[in-house]
């Protein structure tokens, strides 16, 4: 076991507690120090006669409330992977007895592969319903959400007309791509199943930068499962991805980079996957996983600049390349945990694509969504309360678009502030397409659900 997982390394300083966004907002959460290292120490062997702590004890500490934002990891002066230890308690807490239906719906949500396919399979019916009887269709959708334990206050993404793989194949130009280096796009469930626009933008930008983009068969990264405490599901997903991406790499080359526009997917593939799947293959796979921004600012940078030069030659003046701004940029927790910096604001700034507003230091924290946690009926208000400082900071700004790499952050910010959000790669794609391309809004305004304002505490 690595030192980072030894609870005895904890010096009890509470730096993690000061950094934890859930602890600050939620009286039910005992804090990362108690749920992480202290609980792990009790499990390793407490005082003689002390009962061995089980699922009920973990649940009593509110272990299920941890959002896995990793803020504790980045605060710990002793270098402990606090979130990995809270994760163990979370997995334990998930074993508390519950009704068969709750167990089923919980597992369904944690299994994004199944749930996502269910939602996209229902897409045609949803589209038809929204055309024929919008109010009735919306009412039915919300009832469905309630039954599954999801919050009816959340706006659902509009069902996509064209799936990402279909679009990718239809726009492929084999004669141009033949000589280009390949990369594997790990699109993430959101871009693959719910909102292909981010995937399309990522593909356009990567192609413009001189890469042949492959989208081999892949499954959910397992992040929603592990943040719901469903370790076995996460391990299944990890094993499946090692096999599927391994096959694709045999075809495309063992060193082919794997690029994901979603920081949570990148984090799961890079950090969690080698822990869940032992062996050299998983480690080798994890070592070539890139966050999209990191990849564009790194290996693809010169290609990207050349692409922009080409676009500029087509335009009369540089300013016309710019997409409408100003923007605000939100750094997702998982991008911070990856230690990748903030590549997109730097890229967009360097390319002259828009100006950025400063939302202040309060906006640097966790938005509170925590993947699936904020979607559930029980977690909805809690998620808004957790993200309150961040959401208020954005609510007071008036940017044209709030940009963030993470779909959950975008969802939360859009729902709570009523502002338009987009992935920064969409702005980059629009800048590269130039003024000749047909203009369309980057994102339609979503439903604003915060009529009662952002709650203070849960």
């Amino acid at each position: 076991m690595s030192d980072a997982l030894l609870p005895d390394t904890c010096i009890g300083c509470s730096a993690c507690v000061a950094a934890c966004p859930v602890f600050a907002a939620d009286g039910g959460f005992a804090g990362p120090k108690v749920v992480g290292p202290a609980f792990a120490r009790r499990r390793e062997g407490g005082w003689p006669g002390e009962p061995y702590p089980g699922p009920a004890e973990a649940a009593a500490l509110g272990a299920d409330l941890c959002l896995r934002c990793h803020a504790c990891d980045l605060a710990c002066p002793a270098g402990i992977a606090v979130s990995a230890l809270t994760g163990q308690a979370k997995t334990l807490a998930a074993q508390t007895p519950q009704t068969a239906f709750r167990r089923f719906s919980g597992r369904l949500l944690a299994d994004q592969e199944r749930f996502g396919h269910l939602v996209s399979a229902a897409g045609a019916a949803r589209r038809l319903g929204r055309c024929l009887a919008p109010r009735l269709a919306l009412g039915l959708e919300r009832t469905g959400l309630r039954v599954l334990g999801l919050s009816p206050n959340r706006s659902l993404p509009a069902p996509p007309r064209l799936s990402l793989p279909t679009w990718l194949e239809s726009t492929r130009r084999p004669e141009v791509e033949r000589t280009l280096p390949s990369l594997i796009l790990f699109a993430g469930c959101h871009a693959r199943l719910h909102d292909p626009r981010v995937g399309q933008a990522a593909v356009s930008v990567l192609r413009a930068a001189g890469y042949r983009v492959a989208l081999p068969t892949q499954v959910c990264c397992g992040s929603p499962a592990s943040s719901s405490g469903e370790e076995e599901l996460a391990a299944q997903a990890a094993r499946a991805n090692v096999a599927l991406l391994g096959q694709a790499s045999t075809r495309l080359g063992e060193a082919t980079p794997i690029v994901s526009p979603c920081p949570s997917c990148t984090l799961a593939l890079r950090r969690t996957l080698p822990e869940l799947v032992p062996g050299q293959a998983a480690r080798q796979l994890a070592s070539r996983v890139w966050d999209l921004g990191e990849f564009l600012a790194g290996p693809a940078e010169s290609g990207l600049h050349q692409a922009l030069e080409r676009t500029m030659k087509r335009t009369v003046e540089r300013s016309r390349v710019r997409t409408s701004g100003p923007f605000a940029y939100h750094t997702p927790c998982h991008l911070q945990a990856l230690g990748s910096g903030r590549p997109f604001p730097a890229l967009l700034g360097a390319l002259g694509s828009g100006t950025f507003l400063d939302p202040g230091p309060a906006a640097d924290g966790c938005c509170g969504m925590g993947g699936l946690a904020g979607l559930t009926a029980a977690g909805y208000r809690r998620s808004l309360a957790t993200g309150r400082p961040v959401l208020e900071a954005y609510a007071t700004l008036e940017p044209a678009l709030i940009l963030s790499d993470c779909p959950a952050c975008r969802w939360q910010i859009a729902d709570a502030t009523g502002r338009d959000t987009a992935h920064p790669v969409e702005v980059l794609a629009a800048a590269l397409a130039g003024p000749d391309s047909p203009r369309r809004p980057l994102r339609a305004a979503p439903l604003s659900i915060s009529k009662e304002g952002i709650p203070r505490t849960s």
Partner: protein
Amino acid sequence: MTYDVVVIGSGLAGLVAAASAAAGGAKVGVISTSSGNLGLWSGLATGPAGGGRDVAEALCFFLETGERAGLPYRRAAALTGFDLLAASGRKIRAVLAPETMAAGDLRGLPTAACGSGLLVAGFTELADYPAALIAAEARAWTGLAVNHRSLSLGREVGHGSGPRIARLFDDRTWFQGFLDAARRVLIAEKPWRAGMDTARPAAIAFPPVLGLFAFRDNLTALSEALGCPVFELPALPPSIPGQRFWRFWRHRLEADGRVTFHAGRKVVKTGVEDGRCLWVADELTRFQARAFVLATGGVAGGGLLVSPSAFFAVTADDGEDGRQDQDRWSVDPAPDTPREPLFDLDTAGQGPDWLTWGPRTDRDGRPFQRAGAEGGSEAPRSSGAGRRRKPLANVFVAGWLLGGSEKRPPDACLSIVSGWRAGRLAASLAAKPDGERGGDPR
């Protein structure tokens, strides 16, 4: 990834070094595992700042950057620094203090403090902040009239801790309600102690939890509502002043666009050639730079490797019956000296006697206070297997890693001054054309 300057560590020294290098025009990458000891920091810069132009410039730079970051610090008018109350209620000297604490300078308080008293306000729900004890200690140590009052923050807090209460104070609506309660509880209608000529305290000290972000507005509003100066006292961790520092400085540096933070990364490899460091790397990424600042902290921050045996070698003598006798545990002088893990730098350790964990009570006597990379804040020496090699020309050491090397305990002033100096030297070295590098930057 390529930068002009790479700073390793993002505690106080690392952040100051990054700001200083960025101010010198460098593109800076900060690689760190965590926010270091900031989570434990009281927010005060204690310890002697020393004299000289460099120190004055460093402190000036720190004050200016704090102002730009929205977290202003103050420097005492008196040469000896501020006289403040510590978390224990005892008197403490500080060269720099956050604006929220600087108003608590005991010498600057109205002279009436002796008559109507300084009031230590506590919150019933706040753990680890015994207002009564702090007031009693303060009375004993300062000779001032110090009283205490506690007020409840309401059911909403539950069993509160600093971060939860700070979150409440960031809420404007809640804070308006708090102002009324504070007025009612803290400002008595008639004198509540014999000999007091007024019910209004001369000044009120609050725990340092008056908001993570809205603290400046809150203090102004409180001072107006209560009709006397108010200030924050330092407190035990979890430290809100440390959190404020981390968030406000990091945000400013990131927003200015010259500094990139790579958090959660542990440097495990270095590339050294001809007495110069070319790159450092974690398991995944190689970071190249022209100059490096080593601000990895002391033993607690991981900047120094000390095996347990370096602190004390515990041996148990076997008794006559072969069993280990608890009374005969003995603590031997430690055999190991601490090692700087990245570049294998010499430390201030002087062999076994250096690590004696004796009964001395002065701070210099503790091993972790005296450990430190040797060589001043400019060019550390590198040693390998007992041989001394040329100092690394483009690696600069800052912060607690230096502690002890100058026979002084590490403190925040050391971090600020050495961080500023290391950042400035690194930036100027990085700005030189290729041919001119490699010499002594001094």
